[in-house]
């Protein structure tokens, strides 16, 4: 009986979605702007990351994007980086939207057409954002779009994670 319970628990742990405290999912995705350039999650270790899973057809994602641009401008990318992962079926929609909102291409934008990340994270809603610390651990999960108030709280968390 104990064996059976442990098998069930292990399999749930193996197939369950990553949660707060777990290691963030490793990825290797192409840049939205340059399909030949891939970004590995390992290359981002050592900095605080806000991984945002978004789509151009999602109105909540559109609402929070200008706030992300504003937020990224406040921190150097070597310390804190916002990584967008578009899950659009066709990347043109994402490109068109970002051309208006992020003209300076300040946000790191990746393309996940196969939706590997939301599938692995089992996103309960769109958009979903994951605050990841310097060691690659998930600190906080945000489901739904972030408003000004949530941004303030996020900034406090970033401050703590950066140790400043």
């Amino acid at each position: 009986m104990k064996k059976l319970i442990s098998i069930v628990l292990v399999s749930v742990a193996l197939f369950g979605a990553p949660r707060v405290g777990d290691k963030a999912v490793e990825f290797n995705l192409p840049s939205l702007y340059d399909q030949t350039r891939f970004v590995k999650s390992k290359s981002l270790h050592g900095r605080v990351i806000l991984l945002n899973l978004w789509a151009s057809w999602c109105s909540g994602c559109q609402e929070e994007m200008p706030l992300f641009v504003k937020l990224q401008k406040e921190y150097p990318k070597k310390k804190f980086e916002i990584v967008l992962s578009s899950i659009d079926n066709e990347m043109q929609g994402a490109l068109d939207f970002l051309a208006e909102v992020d003209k300076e291409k300040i946000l790191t934008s990746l393309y996940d057409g196969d939706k590997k990340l939301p599938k692995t994270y089992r996103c309960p809603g769109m958009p979903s954002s994951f605050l990841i610390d310097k060691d690659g651990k998930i600190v906080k999960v945000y489901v739904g779009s972030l408003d000004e108030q949530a941004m303030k709280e996020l900034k406090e968390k970033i401050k703590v994670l950066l140790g400043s």
Partner: protein
Amino acid sequence: MKTIIIVLIALYMSACSQKLVRVMPYEKEYFAQEKMSLSPIAEQSEQEGHVFLIREASAGGNSSFQGGCGCR
């Protein structure tokens, strides 16, 4: 005890079956398209509302929000 284990295993296995297809939030791209809305053409629905108003001599009855009885 055996029955409970069998039921638990059956429930566990059924979670992986193809029968329980659920559209996840990240798979709703086609649902988000304008043509998928109930009244995709705003002008057309406005026109239909106007025709309904003339025909039935009551406003608001073309939706489930009001009864169209004119009693309010």
